[in-house]
């Protein structure tokens, strides 16, 4: 690995890991959400460093532009922006730790097993945005359509959940009121 690339990679990974740690350890929930955004940004930078422009920009657009806002809204709408009342360590920290360690071990095992022993250095394919678009519209068009239908269903479902239920019962009292 070239030294310059290594330094950039180290800086980005320190940023990403620091953001993730802060998201887990900070006491204020909104601070946690903002630190999580730093992690998202770090991941996007990692993608960009790997020359995956589309993945990097899509990461920024979706995660920083939408998911982070969604998380912030969810926190504000459910718990309020008031004083934090949570301890850093929950009572079941040991179980959580062991589950996390098991998941990490499984993932690490899978990654190390699945890697080819020696990756030739110059096999990185030049993936342009155009080729991603062409692939989505030709060989992966069915998954794309399924995802589109799923998202539309989720959208309509969210609207139905949020719709006021009073609509069916509302006209009766109004008529009685003599309006």
């Amino acid at each position: 690995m070239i030294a310059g690339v290594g330094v950039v990679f180290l800086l980005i990974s320190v940023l990403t890991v620091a953001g993730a740690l802060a998201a887990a350890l900070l006491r204020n929930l909104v601070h946690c959400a903002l630190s999580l955004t730093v992690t998202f940004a770090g991941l996007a930078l990692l993608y960009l460093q790997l020359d995956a422009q589309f993945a990097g920009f899509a990461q920024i657009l979706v995660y920083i532009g939408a998911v982070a806002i969604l998380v912030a809204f969810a926190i504000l709408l459910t718990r309020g922006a008031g004083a934090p009342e949570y301890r850093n360590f929950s009572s079941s920290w040991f179980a959580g730790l062991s589950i996390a360690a098991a998941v990490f071990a499984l993932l690490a095992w899978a990654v190390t097993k699945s890697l080819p022993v020696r990756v030739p250095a110059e096999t990185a394919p030049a993936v342009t945005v155009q080729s991603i678009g062409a692939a989505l519209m030709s060989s992966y068009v069915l998954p794309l359509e399924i995802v589109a239908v799923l998202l539309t269903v989720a959208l309509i479902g969210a609207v139905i959940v949020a719709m006021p239920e009073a609509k069916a019962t509302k006209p009766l009292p109004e008529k009685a009121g003599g309006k």
Partner: protein
Amino acid sequence: MSFLANLDQVFVLLQHWIAGFFPLWLQPVVATILGVIAIVATFPGIFAVTTVLERKGLGRMQNRLGPNRVGPLGILQPVADGIKSLTKEDIVPLSADAVVHFLAPVLLVIAVFLGFAVLPVGRNMVLVNFDAGLLFFFAIGASTELSIFMAGWSSRNKYSLLGAMRAVAQMISYEVPLLLSSVVVVMITGSLSTVKIVEAQSGFTGWFPHWYVFTPWGFAGFALFVVAALAETNRSPFDLPEGESELVAGYFTEYSGFKFALFFLGEYLGMLSIAGFAITLFLGGWGAPFSFLGFVPSWGWFFLKLLAAIAFFIWLRGTLPRLRQDQLMNFAWKFMLPMALLNLLVAGAWRFLGDGWGRWVICSIVLLTAYALLGRVLMRKQGLGARSYRYAE
């Protein structure tokens, strides 16, 4: 002719000349830094001009004079404003979240400046020509929402929080039609690169240019893009997040001194960059409006178009009243979104109907019918009658 060609490329030549003083391995870095300096110097300069133009223009529209004390005709007003905001006390509320409160305006300005990196302001004048330049701009634009949320939340002020919630809801809603209305350009050009989009519009038929705005789908896309851009930048008539009569100043109520100036700067730079992208996508970028005007430098055309766009924004601000929250959301989801989706279909049809007058007629009729029908249905739901006036007695 050679002089005109040189004038067209004068800034590029200047950049190469300065970079030539440095050793070869340093030259790309120096050239990039020079480009960054040019962006960081030019657009705040236009911002300063815009503030004085806006105040004087609004003043004229409201039958008053506007600033006229600092310098001849009040031209030096932005300098005075800048010095004032630099010397003012920076007040941070006691209960505010100091770190987030500080970071919010800084992040906003950084994100807005990043957007200019892919904006072609002239022939060969773009800082980075990304393969996915347009996507980069929208990604950066989406991240400004977060800094607005940070500003509103960290101030610990109900007006700030309400303003931030309004701003974020509005920006998320109008981002959908903004993106969809620019997708038609990508569909026809076949590229996300801003440079290629401008080049695709650089031809002429007789005197007239091949700008996308002069096609049915392009005109519809342009109109949708401009409305969504107004909402994205919280400009009037979409200035609910900062409605002075309701929310003091919205999400930056608790900001003073230079941080307030940063918010002001970020807002206007956001307006400049989104107007620049409207020009790039639909108005031919740096291209001349008539074939015989090609001798004017390309950057001259870009900045002329930018000033015209700003004048249009100021004119709108002086003309239109503020929308209500329900009108804002209804307009985004019931009018803008269906029109933008229909425009995608129309652009596809345009691409495959072949040359000739047939596609002009078909595409125009489809778009006009949809516009009329959607407008009628929406207006009926609004329950608006004839306009009525009430006068003070």
